[in-house]
């Protein structure tokens, strides 16, 4: 008997009869479970701490009912499933959502890409509040993917050849570039980005026509939903994209008061047309039903921030309210970026003020705290996912003792403007003295 035969024998010894398992009515079991659990206390995954204490206390008191008590948390969830199932064969969940959730959904254009195997991967809503970027009200985007999640691209563009004189430029400019780090077309073409804003379609189209096109311009008009979109079929930003079977296209149209843009890397125009055809207007129930798990991760920002702060040394000027709330933030990376930037901005501000005031102790405290960044779970998470600002932090920390960083071999710059690029001023914690003055004048 060879190894392959051994494995085949083992596979044949599987005690579970797949057919019978498939026939098992799990939904009916859910109903039974619900009936059994009706009235039990339900826990949210965002109340883990409290829930854990309750469960542990209960475990000590009543070991015989462990699973029942634990199961309380599932009761509401299972109820949700049952209501969904009771809605009939509808493609989308038809349960009734709360008003707040519906409001959140209805602040978007309620569009889904209903291609076979495609799903919502991420949703982004423009931050709200006093430091919101100008003109970004009502702005947001969704990312749809098929297959495995697609990592972020980290593209490096290098000038090659000699600068040339081109029409409209005031001097010679580089026209040739070499790009590194671009994902292969097979991965890029598994993603579609839908953006929306309240800007005007006419001005957006004017801007798009004037923007540089590395492979020339070619526009067509294609149907989308109930209207027609202007499609930039040569929307490639990078020189190395644009070859056969490797195109970038963007469609622009206006609907329901929104300016909509659908961007996708596609093999050809037919594939782009197909993606436009997949776009479907849905109701808020269906839209919410399509939300991915990572949206849940950040939906409760207060709990998420608390969790993210674990293991990070905090300056005495820190309070959770310092982290910008950014409305209904639905992107965990966005919350993570805000948390790590807020903490870093505060430490750098303490560091700079202490240095200028000759307080070595406080400056040293900030340097020591920031030097532990590699041990922060949040930094590790962002670093693993290659998310901003993980790759910036080490450079900033390395520049702390001298106050400068080497931006090119032998060329040094002040570190504080670089720190400011974390968005410190936008988050209400300017580190540059002149920005602090401007903030106090407001």
């Amino acid at each position, binding site marked *: 008997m060879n190894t392959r035969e051994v494995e085949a024998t083992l596979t044949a010894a599987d005690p579970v009869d797949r057919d019978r398992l498939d026939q098992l009515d799990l939904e009916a079991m859910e109903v039974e479970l619900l009936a059994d659990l009706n009235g039990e206390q339900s826990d949210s995954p*965002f109340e883990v701490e409290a829930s854990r204490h309750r469960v542990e206390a209960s475990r000590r008191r009543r070991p015989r009912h462990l699973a029942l008590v634990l199961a309380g948390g599932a009761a509401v969830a299972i109820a949700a499933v049952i209501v969904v199932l009771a809605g009939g064969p509808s493609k989308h969940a038809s349960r009734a959502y*709360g008003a707040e959730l519906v409001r959140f959904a209805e602040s978007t254009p309620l569009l889904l890409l209903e291609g076979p195997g495609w799903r919502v991967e991420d949703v982004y809503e423009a931050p709200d509040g006093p430091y919101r970027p100008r003109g970004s009200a009502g702005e947001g985007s969704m990312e749809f993917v098929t297959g495995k999640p697609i990592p972020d691209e980290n593209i490096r563009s290098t000038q090659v050849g000699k600068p040339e004189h081109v029409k409209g430029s005031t001097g010679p400019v580089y026209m040739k570039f070499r790009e590194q780090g671009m994902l292969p077309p097979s991965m890029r073409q598994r993603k579609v980005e839908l953006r929306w804003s309240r800007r005007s379609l006419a001005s957006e189209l004017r801007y798009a026509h004037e923007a540089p096109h590395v492979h020339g311009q070619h526009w067509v008009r294609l149907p989308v939903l109930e209207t027609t979109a202007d499609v930039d079929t040569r929307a490639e930003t990078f020189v190395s994209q644009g070859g056969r079977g490797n195109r970038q296209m963007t469609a622009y149209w206006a609907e329901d008061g929104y300016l909509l843009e659908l961007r996708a890397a596609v093999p050809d125009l037919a594939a782009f047309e197909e993606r436009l055809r997949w776009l479907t207007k849905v109701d808020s129930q269906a839209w919410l039903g399509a939300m991915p798990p990572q949206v849940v991760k950040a939906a409760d920002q207060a709990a998420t921030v608390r969790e993210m702060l674990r293991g990070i040394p905090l300056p005495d000027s820190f309070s959770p309210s310092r982290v910008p709330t950014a409305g209904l933030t639905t992107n965990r990376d966005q919350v993570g970026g805000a948390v790590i930037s807020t903490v870093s901005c505060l430490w750098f501000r303490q560091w700079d003020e202490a240095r200028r005031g000759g307080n070595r102790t406080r400056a040293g405290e900030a340097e020591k705290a920031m030097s532990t960044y590699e041990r922060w779970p949040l930094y590790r998470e962002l670093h693993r996912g290659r998310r901003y600002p993980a790759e910036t932090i080490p450079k900033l920390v390395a520049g702390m003792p001298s106050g400068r960083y080497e931006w090119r071999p032998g060329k040094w710059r002040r570190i504080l403007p670089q720190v400011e690029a974390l968005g410190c001023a936008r988050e209400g914690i300017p580190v540059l003295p002149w920005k602090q003055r401007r903030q106090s004048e407001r």
Partner: protein
Amino acid sequence: MAQGQIEKGALGRELAQVQFGRLYREQGRAVLAYALRRVDDREDAADVVAETFLVAWRRLAEVPVGAAAQLWLYAVARRVIANLHRSKRRRTRLGGRLAESLRTELATHPVPNGEAAEALRAMAELSEEDRELLLLVAWEGLSPGEAAKVLDISSLAARSRLHRARRRLRAQMEGDKPVTVRSSELDTEEAR
């Protein structure tokens, strides 16, 4: 501010319920199969499913997206089963309900005989680590890389361990006779 936080909390809970429901529908059967293959009593399998999904509910934010969710759930179920074996705790009402359904719907398990029974007997002689790795590949149909994620080991270690585990299983099935592995066979194993 507090009101806003409450609203966001409510939003989180609502979304979490929908996500959890979807996870249960997509992976419930796979977790049940995993449990049924590893516990003696179907009633215990019911408990394992219930507890695994309760862990998932409480740690929903950590559950990965897509196919990786199944591996995550398998890893949780594995720990739940380990605790079950250690504590030998009493079955709960919740598990009882599910178990009752299992009893009626899965009235009989196929009883292995011949080579299959021999394979199971030989499996019992292997270490828990070897056994779990073999089962994840043979019964759950995972690749060595996916099994590595469930067991929280490197993909390279999983391939190497899998090769050794298969040799040990083969040795057990052939009555502890020394097994010689041909180089061509080794190549095939490594290439998988």
